């Protein structure tokens, strides 16, 4: 299990492939991999967005991400999980978050991936600020999903 914050752009599919290939405990054991990739849009709430800044609470953010993955591991039979989340400055099309879950069968992988993502959105301390033509603004709340 790995949880990581990145302050530079990353390629989620390369990360996924590298992590899977380099994790010996997975080899021959997983039958299902569920992944979610969140990507920055160039618009939000009827405004063009040219840039986004992701702030976090160093220490608390990592702790809560780990705890969310641990909770998923208790609830479902998982072989492994990988969460990578961006901080700092992002541009449209930049990946924001990767959640990947490995399990023997698909039900656990699908459910745990969804759970981790929804918990992350409601509990992990991150805040988005967007640059729009009218200026910079903080995102007040997440969209329902």
């Amino acid at each position, binding site marked *: 299990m790995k949880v990581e914050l990145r302050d530079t752009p990353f390629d989620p599919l390369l990360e996924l492939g590298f992590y899977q290939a380099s994790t010996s405990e997975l080899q021959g054991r997983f039958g299902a991999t569920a992944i979610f990739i*969140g990507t920055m849009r160039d618009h939000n709430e009827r405004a063009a967005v040219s840039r986004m800044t*992701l*702030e*976090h*609470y160093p*220490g*608390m953010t990592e*702790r809560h991400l780990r705890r969310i993955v641990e909770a998923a591991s208790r609830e479902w039979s998982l072989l492994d999980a990988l969460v990578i*989340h961006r901080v700092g400055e992002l541009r449209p099309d930049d990946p*924001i*978050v990767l959640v990947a879950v490995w399990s023997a069968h698909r039900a656990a992988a699908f459910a745990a991936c969804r759970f981790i*993502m929804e918990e*992350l*959105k*409601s*509990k*992990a*301390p*991150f*805040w*988005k*600020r967007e640059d729009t033509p009218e200026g910079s603004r*903080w*995102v*007040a*709340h*997440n969209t329902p999903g």
Partner: protein
Amino acid sequence: MSVQVKYFASLRDRLGRAEDRIAASEGMTVAAVWAALWPEIPLPPNTLTAVNMEYATLEQVVRDGDEVAFFPPVTGG
């Protein structure tokens, strides 16, 4: 008894600073920490609070050396 206080995101911008240190009294709650530092500013609705990086209620009592944080709803992912 001293408590470190941190603010994040829009709340930090509004207050104009990222942290404070306050000499807290015995039995002081998270709500009382805010009221002592910002007597003119009611705690904005929906503000989340943490003590030592764990979510906390406004009624939680702080202890010497604690780190108290105030921040708006989270918007990651």
